[in-house]
């Protein structure tokens, strides 16, 4: 496995360089795992991406570097300590004196000679390919879809130039991932939504959620998904609810700050029983916080967001494939139970580009709206909120039949009319909350990782999945099956069966979370009484890696 870092100032073209390079690596068979670390600015500052690649599935980023591509000298200063023994730094000759690590290339000069200073990135790409023993077989294919026609030729030339200027250093390790996808977490959610029959997406721009909207908008005409940029997040969620009421599968997406503004309408979805999928791509809070970085600190918030009580489901997506499949499932669950379903992702997942097996198309039943037209009374007697055994009332689409469809944010009777009756109120509350009984039967238990007889049980959720999975593997190699982990995807209502089975067997339980207060641990204690003995909490906006987890556990003597 290799790991290279590309760093420079915002606006120096890191993203483009990375996108091309990661594609080339994947085309040559590698599994690619790219993570992004950016500042909240458009130009300047210091941004970097790390591309980890190898011939087997990779689950975490890593801090040990085989190489650095430095677009400025700050990059060298900040990251050279992470270089492995035989690591290299590829940079413009002007930046540094040659030493045993530096591979200087007069990229700026070469680019100028080629006639466009912006192609230095492609020169670097060429050099990297050579260093890692790659061919240039896919360069043309990839370049064609990555740069404008106008710049195609010159970039191809640049790649070749870079390629010719250095010597191969590393072995090509093979790998069979040519036919797999390479995409971001946000793209996976967007694709999942399209697969689930999304028709309407409304949102207000907010990092790191915006690329969901951008992807959907770019495919709007092909997919017949209408994307509406709202004036604010309140409009966004109320629009999604309105569209869903009228029969269109609808989703809204934002980050924590925007979600804070959506809280009132979440309850509207709850009491009016209108299916809704809302994505919260978390970033560090509170308030504006660190806009372009990662955190898992909205869990307790979304679990109890909005005044009053109503059923909801919260799914934390764990990796890119999960993001796709769980988004489809979110629509199914929202529709089936006529509730809001919240998808929790985070910047780490959203912005990382990772290799995944091509997605399967969804089952028909997952994308068929639960309209339940059978067993319904005559249209005239249609009761939108009919009391039923499982609490789920037959839903209809306004305008489809003679049935008049009501939606009401006040407490209402079966027909949907405002009521002040104490009796109906209690029954309506029960009806709504009882939907969770059935839903709980469908909950997905957390994935168990590691050894069945583990002494130390790690607990995590969402995007901690990859780092924890890799950490457990590393640890169990060293410590002979001492570790196990449960990583939650479905997180509210909390599935408790597997936890109740595994927890008593472990000597120590450690929650690992990307927040400061151990939110999962709190929820687990509330719903199971199980208390974690220790915790690893990180809240500096940077995702913990497998290696860091291993390190902390070892240092803590765990």
């Amino acid at each position, binding site marked *: 496995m290799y790991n290279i870092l590309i760093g420079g100032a915002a606006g120096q073209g890191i993203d483009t360089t990375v996108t091309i390079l990661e594609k080339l690596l994947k085309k040559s068979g590698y599994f690619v795992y790219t993570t992004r670390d950016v500042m909240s600015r458009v130009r300047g500052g210091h941004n970097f991406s790390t591309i980890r690649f190898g011939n087997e599935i990779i689950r975490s980023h890593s801090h040990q570097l085989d190489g650095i591509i430095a677009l400025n000298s700050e990059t060298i200063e900040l990251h050279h300590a992470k270089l492995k023994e035989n690591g290299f730094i590829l940079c413009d000759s002007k930046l540094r004196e040659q030493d045993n690590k530096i591979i200087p290339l007069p990229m700026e000069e070469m680019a100028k000679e080629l006639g466009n200073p912006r192609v230095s990135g492609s020169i670097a790409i060429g050099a990297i390919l050579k260093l890692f023993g790659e061919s240039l077989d896919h360069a043309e294919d990839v370049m064609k879809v990555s740069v404008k026609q106008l710049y195609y030729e010159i970039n191809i030339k640049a790649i070749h130039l870079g390629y010719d200027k250095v010597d191969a250093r590393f072995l090509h390790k093979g790998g069979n991932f040519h036919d797999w996808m390479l995409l971001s977490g946000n793209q996976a959610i967007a694709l999942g939504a399209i697969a689930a029959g999304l028709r309407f997406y409304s949102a207000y721009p907010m990092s790191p959620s915006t690329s969901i909207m951008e992807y959907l908008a770019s495919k709007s005409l092909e*997919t017949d998904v209408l994307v509406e940029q*709202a004036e604010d997040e309140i409009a966004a969620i*109320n629009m999604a*609810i309105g569209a869903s009421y009228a029969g269109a599968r609808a989703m809204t997406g934002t980050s924590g700050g925007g979600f804070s503004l959506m809280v009132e309408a979440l309850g509207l979805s709850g009491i009016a029983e209108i299916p809704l999928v809302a994505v919260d791509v978390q970033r560090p809070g509170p308030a504006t916080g660190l806009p372009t970085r990662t955190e898992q600190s909205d869990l307790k918030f979304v679990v109890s967001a909005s005044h009053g009580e109503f059923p909801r489901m919260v799914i934390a997506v764990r990796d890119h494939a999960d993001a796709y499949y769980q988004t489809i499932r979110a629509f199914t669950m929202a529709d089936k139970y006529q509730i809001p379903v919240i998808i929790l992702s985070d910047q780490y997942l959203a912005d990382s580009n990772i290799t995944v097996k091509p997605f399967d198309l969804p089952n028909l039943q997952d994308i068929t709206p639960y309209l339940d037209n059978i067993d319904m009374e005559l249209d005239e007697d249609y009761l939108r909120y009919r009391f039923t055994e499982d609490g789920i009332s037959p839903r209809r689409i306004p305008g489809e039949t003679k049935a008049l469809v*009501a*939606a009401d944010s006040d407490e209402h009777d079966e027909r949907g009319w405002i009521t002040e009756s104490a009796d109906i109120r209690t029954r309506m509350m029960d009806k709504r909350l009882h939907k969770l009984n059935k839903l709980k039967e469908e909950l997905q238990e957390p994935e168990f990782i590691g050894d069945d007889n583990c002494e130390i049980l790690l607990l995590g959720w969402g995007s901690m999945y990859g780092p924890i999975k890799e950490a457990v593997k590393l640890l169990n190699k060293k410590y002979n099956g001492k570790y196990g982990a449960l990583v939650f995807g479905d997180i509210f209502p909390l599935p408790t069966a597997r936890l109740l089975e595994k927890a008593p067997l472990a000597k120590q339980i450690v929650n690992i979370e990307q927040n400061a207060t151990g939110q999962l641990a709190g929820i687990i204690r509330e719903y199971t009484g199980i208390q974690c003995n220790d915790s690893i909490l990180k809240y500096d906006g940077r995702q913990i890696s497998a290696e860091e987890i291993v390190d902390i556990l070892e240092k803590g003597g765990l």
Partner: protein
Amino acid sequence: MCQFQTYETAWCPGCGNFSILKCLKNALEELGKDPSKVLMAAGIGQAAKTPQYISANSFCGLHGRSLPAATAAKIANEELTVIVNTGDGDSYGEGGNHFIHTIRRNIDITHFVHNNQIYGLTKGQASPTTAEGQITGVQTTGNNNIPFHPLLLAIASGAGFVARAFSGDPEHLTAIMKKAISYKGYALVDILQPCVSFNKVNTFRYYKDRVYHLDDSYDPTNKMAAIEKAMEFDDTIPIGVLYHEEMPDFHAKNAVLSKGGQLYKKQCEDAVLQRLIQEFV
């Protein structure tokens, strides 16, 4: 018998809302609307109870938030006649941002604002349209804010159908309602509505003494003239269509919707999805 039926209401006897409700039912009836193809939307307030008293589809959402929900319902199914009835506090106060931006979308919905120049349901605080100086339970030394001119704001935001009516002139109100519902695009009718319980200034008499009909000599397609008329709200109050302009609505301009068909019935083919997946390979 009116298809849109009659229900018991929770309004105060003498409230202007009764007349608005009646005119609305008549307008819908006279336009030959089918209740099952009509969506009555509202926020929260006295005016916002209107959908509860009409036999049609109904969406009683959140205070101030009816417009985005109504907008999206219309987007999802263009066959619905979407009508929003809600209060001045709801439309211009809590919902002020949606008011302006809904106009900018020119979505084909009709917005009837029951403008009683007061917060009715919460018992009489100043709304954006309350007169300067008016005393209420919260504005104990008189309301100091410059009053909100709904029609002026609407025209300034780009609305193509901007009208005022008075609950005390039902014939005229019904006629305006029919025009507004028939207009292709966002239509605003600000309806003067006496609140007998909490607004002792803007009474039935107050309005009755001041309103006058815009006559045939008035050209509603002249924007500057309309703006001037829209500022007239004092000793005399013009009622009628102040501004009228035909322009493409949301559906006509939107790339997905202008292909035709109801959005909620569309599907993305498996082949397309397969292609999108392959693009990432």
